[in-house]
Every structure is written in structure tokens, then in C-alpha cells.
């Protein structure tokens, strides 16, 4: 779940204004408290959750809504939609978000990845019929998957406090502004063509895509909150290192043998 959305009809300008205000507020919070207080040592990219007493109940409350509303709707969506249509909707939004990927690849000094993302947008928006078909991936041009949280990490914000942020889901103070912008990207790019129900479609598609991951969590986790948090930090470290994080061989665990 990577979304903020509104189900009310909103004018484009207010949508834009709201998203940028949101981003600014979170960014201000981010710069204020993303540093770890002196005296505390938290390894870079390790889970850090000083606000667990708030995060845990928020997770519990949103999880109850998710199970009662979002999950059944997402399962219904999967059931109704033929595979090709489901893929098409996901591709359509992913195509718009490649613009965000390109921008952040550039901000991280990865011009080749940025060019790849832009090439994808051009190919998929034209040959791929407005982004419905991911022709670029089939031709071997994969998305960079960069976002603003990764950009901040590359710029030095390696450690960040955990935030459970409905309806975005797991986040950190560093990642939240990027996630909000990422969620708002289709609306910002489509301009006047953006209508309210597109947000709902986007939300359903995103939730449906996340079903395998949350089903795996439900099948395996004894403490779903801690499970989600650890998985989130690990996954973020992996994408920040573009899939090549330093090897964690648990060497210290074998010290006392």
C-alpha cells in the first residue's frame, strides 16, 4: 500500500496544493527528527522504532480496516478483472510513476537509469498504448524503481525512524514524503484528465498487487507488526543498494562457538 488518496471530487489545483503541502510538512518533520539522538547507536538501515507505542496501535487499527474493507475489495477486484486487464491497470499507473523514478535516478547521479526510465515512459506511452502494456520491460528496459526516500538515503539519511502511516503502510520519516509524492504522481501528471475514481482504481490495483505479500505475512508471522517492520527495513536497504546490499553473513552470531 503506497497510497494517500481522496475519494471526493477535488479540483486539480487543490489536489496539487494539498500534495505539496503534505510533502513539505512531512519533509520538515523528516529533517527535524531523522537523525538519531546522541548516545543511541543504531546501525544504518536497521529497524529503529522509538515510537512503537504509537505505531503498534495505529497498525492494529488500520489492519482491522484493511481486513474488513480493503482486502475483500482487492480480492473481489482480482476475481472480477481478467489477468490482462489487471496487468493493464497496474502498468498504466506504473508507467506514470516511472517519471518519478527517472527524476530520483537523476537526483542520485544515475543518468543511465534516468534515461532508461524516460525511454520506458516514451515507449510504453506510445507503442504500449498509453502505458497499458509494458513493452519496455519485454525489450529488456527495466524500471529503476528509484524514489525520493532512496534519494535521501543516498544523500546520507541512512537511519530513519519507523512510521506506520495509513493508508501508505510501513514507512519511515525519511521515506514518507517520497511515498506521498509517489502516490500523487498520476494525479499530478494527468492534470485535468484526472478524475476521482482513478484514485480508487489505483488504490485497488495497488492493494491487489500487495495481496501475495500480505498473505505471506499472514501465513508466517507470529507478530505481524514486527514482521512487517523488519521486512520493510530489509527491503528498503535492498532497493537503496539497487539489489546489491553488503552481505550480512551473521558472522558475529558464530563468534562464541
Amino acid at each position, binding site marked *: 500500500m503506497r497510497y494517500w488518496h481522496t475519494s471526493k471530487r477535488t479540483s486539480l489545483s487543490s489536489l496539487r496544493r494539498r500534495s505539496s503541502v503534505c510533502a513539505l510538512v512531512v519533509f520538515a518533520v523528516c529533517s527535524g527528527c531523522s537523525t538519531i539522538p546522541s548516545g543511541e547507536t543504531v546501525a544504518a538501515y536497521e529497524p529503529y522504532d522509538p515510537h512503537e507505542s504509537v505505531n503498534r496501535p495505529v497498525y492494529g487499527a488500520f489492519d482491522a480496516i484493511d481486513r474488513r474493507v480493503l482486502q475483500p475489495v482487492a480480492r473481489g477486484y482480482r476475481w472480477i478483472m481478467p489477468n490482462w486487464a489487471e496487468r493493464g491497470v497496474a502498468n498504466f499507473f506504473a508507467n506514470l510513476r516511472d517519471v518519478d523514478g527517472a527524476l530520483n535516478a537523476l537526483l542520485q547521479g544515475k543518468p543511465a537509469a534516468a534515461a532508461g526510465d524516460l525511454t520506458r515512459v516514451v515507449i510504453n506511452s506510445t507503442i504500449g498504448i498509453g502505458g497499458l502494456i509494458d513493452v519496455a520491460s519485454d525489450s529488456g528496459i527495466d524500471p529503476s524503481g528509484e524514489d525520493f526516500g532512496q534519494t535521501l538515503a543516498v544523500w546520507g539519511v541512512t537511519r530513519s525512524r519507523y512510521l506506520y502511516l495509513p493508508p501508505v503502510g510501513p514507512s519511515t520519516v525519511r521515506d514518507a514524503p517520497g511515498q506521498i509524492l509517489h502516490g500523487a504522481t498520476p494525479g499530478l501528471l494527468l492534470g485535468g484528465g484526472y478524475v476521482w475514481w482513478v484514485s480508487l482504481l489505483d488504490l485497488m490495483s495497488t492493494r491487489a498487487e500487495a495481496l501475495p505479500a500480505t498473505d505471506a505475512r499472514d501465513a508466517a508471522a507470529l507478530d505481524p507488526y*514486527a514482521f512487517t517492520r*523488519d521486512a520493510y527495513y*530489509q527491503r528498503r536497504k*535492498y532497493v537503496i543498494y539497487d539489489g546489491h546490499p553488503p*552481505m*550480512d*553473513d*551473521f*558472522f558475529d552470531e558464530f563468534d562464541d562457538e
Partner: protein
Amino acid sequence: MLLGLLLSGALAADDEGATARIEALHKALLAAMQCECDTQARAEGLQPVVQTLFDVNNIARISTGRAWREFDEAQRADLEGALERLIVATYADRFDSFAGQRFEVLSEETSRTGAVVRTEIVRSSGERVPIDYYFRGDKVFNVVASGVSDLSLRRADYSSILKEQGYGALLAHIEENIAELAAQAE
């Protein structure tokens, strides 16, 4: 003569490298996916390969952290047994149908604790899921899928239950989890 054959078989198994052991796991997983059988039968088919491949002692020790030192021998053995059955049940649940997936071994590297075998599951859509196996000696103590370490996840998952409810609750939760996996796949 029979003893000789058994011994040579055992020696051959000891000589196997990490890559060969992972290839044996891949073969067992493919067989589990392709077999027209129920979860119970799939689990029974996977059990021997899980038993020889996974280092449940170190998995149990590392995932329970400091609490491990407080457990007596019987508790440790019960936990290791439960974890082994959980790994089998998880594999039997996740690899229950075949849709053209392929397993590829990419490389074998050396870390400070032993070999690391890097593999990918290639789905028929072309999507690739990287899975790395971390060895200590000839056994696997950690599996990292798309950057998410199973051992780290397990440790995070067990930590607060151990701290707040203790050993008995952890074991009960794991047993419950195994039962759920078996029931849900039926």
C-alpha cells in the same frame, strides 16, 4: 557389501558442494510442484531434503537471540523439531503448483561464515526472484529472498513473544502456524 554401498553413499553426500546441495533442493521443489498429490504427501516428499539441508540448530539459536541460553536441552530439541516441521510446511504450502517456473543457480561465493549460493526463480512471465542460500559448513542457516533475510525476519517475529509470553507461547504459536499451513492448503 551393503554397508560398503551405504558408506560410499554417505561419503558422496559429504563431498557434495553447496551448489550441488541447492540443486538437490531445486529438484525436490520441482517434484513437489509437479506432483498431483495433497499437502501431506508433498511435505513428506520434502522432509528428507529439508532435514539434510537446513541447520535448524543455528536457525533456532540465532532466531531466539539471548533467550536461547535460558532454554534447557529438551526445550531446544523441541524448538528445533518444530522449526524443521515449519520449514517443511512452508515449502509444501508455497510450492504447491507448477506454472512453468525455473530454478537457476547463478553463482557460489565465499563469506566469512561459509558458502553463499545465489539463485533465481524464473517465473513463466520472465519475472526473476533472487534467492540466496547462506551455508555454515554443509548446511543452510539463512535464506534471503529479494533482499529479505528469513533469519532476521524470524528473529524480529519471535522477539516480543519471547520477551512478553516466554518459550511456551512461542512453541505454541509455531505449532499453530504449522497446523494452519497444513489446513489452508487442503
